[in-house]
């Protein structure tokens, strides 16, 4: 049980190809009008100090490695919140050639916040709900559902970055990545 995380959750906000609508709403929550600092919430830009991962956007093919990497670099206990219709299901971008239809195709999501864009009130509600889930979690390691790398242990420490697999392993024969280096 992580009792204290509930009183001091730190956010990491990542834009995985959203239209910026939901990002603006998240920033509105942090600004004086909605003031989510009253719950002890701080917006850190640093995955290794964060407890809650807020993801907006449908996960574009470019963003998926980043999402997984940020996710594995967050120390447990942690929760993931998908903000906005396109983070939940792909929304207006669903089925397009360049997106992956929602955050949960790569990492486990704890709270879905619908809406295009999600209202600040909804986001606050979702974050508060996720605190209940955070309280029930412990230090046990959590893994992404796709792009999962091997667990290597070096001198008693888990190699966190190695936990994120590379896209090359996911898409054998994919042509539009082969030309990059």
């Amino acid at each position, binding site marked *: 049980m992580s009792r204290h995380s509930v*009183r001091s959750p730190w956010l990491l906000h990542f834009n995985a190809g959203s239209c910026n609508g939901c990002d603006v709403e998240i920033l509105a929550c942090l600004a004086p009008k909605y003031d989510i600092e009253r719950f002890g919430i701080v917006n850190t830009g640093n995955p290794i100090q964060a407890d809650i991962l807020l993801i907006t956007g449908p996960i574009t093919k470019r963003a998926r490695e980043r999402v997984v990497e940020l996710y594995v670099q967050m120390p447990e206990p942690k929760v993931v919140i998908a903000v906005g219709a396109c983070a939940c299901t792909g929304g207006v971008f669903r089925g397009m050639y360049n997106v992956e239809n929602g955050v949960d195709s790569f990492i486990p999501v704890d709270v879905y916040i619908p809406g295009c864009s999600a209202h600040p009130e909804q986001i606050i509600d979702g974050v508060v709900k996720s605190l209940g889930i955070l309280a029930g979690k412990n230090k046990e390691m959590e893994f992404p559902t796709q792009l999962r790398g091997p667990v290597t242990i070096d001198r008693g420490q888990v190699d966190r970055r190695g936990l994120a697999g590379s896209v090359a392993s996911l898409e054998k024969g994919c042509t539009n990545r082969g030309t990059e280096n």
Partner: protein
Amino acid sequence: MSYWIAFPAIIAAPVLGGLLHGADRVIRARMQSRKGPPLLQPFLDLLKLLEKRQFIVHSYHALLALAHMIVLWVSIGMLFFNSDLLMVIYFHLLATLLLVVAGYSVRSVFSNMGATRELVASLTYEPVFVLCVIALFTQYGTFQPAGILTSANPPLYTLPFIFFALLIALPVKLKKSPFDISEAHQEIIGGVEIEFSGFYKGVLLVSKWLDYVYVYSFLYLFSGGQLGLALAIFVGVFVLLAAVDNATARVTYGEMNRITLPLVIILVVINYVVLSIQRVAI
């Protein structure tokens, strides 16, 4: 301070600093007409950090953070135990340098940049602290806090310009806007703090609180031990720092040095001139 007060004060220093930090966050929120976090939020943050899973980049990196906190604590202890003020300042500088080494010891660009900025910041505020102590020495003939605290007229009245110079250096020391270049959360994500998580981030949080205690005990010297005056200084400086922090944007580090150093030197020179005129007049 007598030993019976100094010992508990040293033990309680992080708690005092934590309360100051909490109060600071609340006051800043109120100034923006927000409710703000609870007063004990820094302690909740600390407890949270202690129960997170730990990541360590390499063991020296973590050890340096620990050493940073301990040396900082020692420097505060020396201040409370009436040690030489110059020694206190050098111990404090040593603590900063340990953090800088920690910042350079990892391969993170932000961490390295934060370490460089930490050095630049210490280049800005350390001379002010040293000049302040030298001025206190010329006026009171002693480098020890006890000699200053027992004298009849407090340094705030005899060295007002030095006090203003110190005020200019305080936002640099406490990493507050407009001089929070070494932390710069939106820019370099906390600088040297970036590679610390869990317990060791907690250690750095406690060091931040100790910094508050260090700065406010330095300001206490200027009250000459008069409690009413000390309270007025504390409240005034506290509110002023919060207001400035809210109202200003971050400057670049070049600008910081260009703004603060000439201003500080002018203030110090004015104070010396005034003092020597007084001496001659007497």
